[in-house]
């Protein structure tokens, strides 16, 4: 059974229920604000909101950020099925999740992402769905990096035929020639610094500008590589 495809809230029975508080806030923000772009996903998305790059490049585009630290695919799936995107009419939804699904295979992660995409599509028939590739992680080469790379390869072949779904390659330029990742790009070898955010998310910003400026939906967008 692919656990990525089973929508699930984060279990926090004895804790501080922060995850549910955040989810509920996102639902109410989606009612209160008219956003042209909604980012949804994991820690990478959440952390982006606290960078200069967000203030400079994304905030002016009227973006909402529904990122939650450590979220897995099944958690994002649950959030979307429970109202986070029901009261917004964005032109673009940016989806980035999968790096926290440590127990899943690349195939399962890819299928999980496809499941989220179809869940979004049921609710927003015409929205553009932008999927930045998963980033490498860890200072030195490791199995998770390999898994992320495999997911990215699978996504390339699976997303190419989906209408209005755009894969953006953001994972290049982080692994240096000696195989390491610098803390100047990822301060904890997972989350992006300002410089790292710029490197990864400038291509996303460029695509958003292009998509938002369109009067008519474009028929043939070459994937930005």
């Amino acid at each position, binding site marked *: 059974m692919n656990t990525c495809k089973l929508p699930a809230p984060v279990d926090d029975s004895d804790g501080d229920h*922060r995850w549910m508080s955040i989810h509920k806030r996102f639902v109410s923000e989606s009612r209160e604000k008219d956003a042209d772009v909604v980012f949804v996903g994991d820690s990478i998305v959440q952390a982006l909101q606290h960078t200069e790059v967000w203030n400079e490049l994304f905030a002016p585009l009227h973006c909402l950020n529904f990122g939650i630290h450590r979220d897995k695919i099944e958690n994002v799936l649950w959030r979307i099925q429970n109202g986070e995107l029901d009261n917004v009419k964005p032109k673009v939804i940016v989806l980035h999740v999968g790096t926290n699904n440590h127990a899943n295979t690349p195939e399962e992660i890819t299928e999980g992402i496809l499941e989220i995409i179809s869940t979004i599509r049921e609710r927003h028939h015409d929205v553009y769905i932008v999927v930045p590739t998963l980033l490498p992680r860890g200072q030195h080469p490791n199995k998770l990096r390999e898994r992320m790379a495999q997911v990215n390869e699978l996504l390339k072949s699976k997303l190419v035929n989906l209408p209005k779904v755009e894969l953006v390659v953001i994972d290049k330029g982080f692994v240096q020639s000696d195989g390491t990742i610098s803390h100047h790009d990822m301060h904890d070898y997972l989350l992006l610094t300002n410089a790292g955010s710029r490197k990864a998310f400038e291509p996303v910003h460029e695509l958003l500008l292009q998509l938002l400026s369109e009067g008519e939906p474009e028929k043939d967008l070459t994937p930005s590589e």
Partner: protein
Amino acid sequence: MNPCVIPKLSEDYDGDERKLSMHKRFVQQARTCESEILFIGDSIIEQLQFSTLWLEKISALHCINFGIGGDRVENVLWRIQNGELDFNVKLKAVVLFVGTNNTDCTPHEIFEGILEIVKEIKQRLGNVFVILPTLLPRGQYPNPYRERNEHVNTFLIDKFCNEANADEHTQNVHVVEIHHNIVQNDQTISHHIMHDYLHLTNSGYLKVFGPVYDKLCTLLNK
């Protein structure tokens, strides 16, 4: 046995050894940097370095940041026993903030763990100033984690601020009470101060860690 006083390398749950990479980087930085003040602890310390307060004020005091997200008391204890306090330059102050991730420990265990770290710091660095900001409340609504952190603070204040409990470990240790005025009248915490009801926003850092900066300035006559 109290798990907080048993030094422990952070678990590599993910499988990419990121925390060990960070620790090794910190050991290297300790040997080579010119910093006089060390901030050490968990994600709340780690993320402080990306705040305006840090960039515009704290960093000017020649500070270095050894925060690691998710770290527990016993992880920080392990780190300082394994090279992160081996500075080339003599440190003037250490700001220690850890404990909120020990969610399965009792308040007294957490307090004892923090005390153990303080002892270790003093043993290695002599009569350096140690600043202990109190643990912060968390969660949008009242919950057991908030109570636990509040309880740890009671122990910290009693140990380090009560003259009757003064001993060789309490000398030059300053508790800075930063946990007040975060919970609102209706008992909730706003996402404007803690974006995920745990980590501080940029303006949250200014408000909450501002007094830590002030304390450093006072102690170091800056």
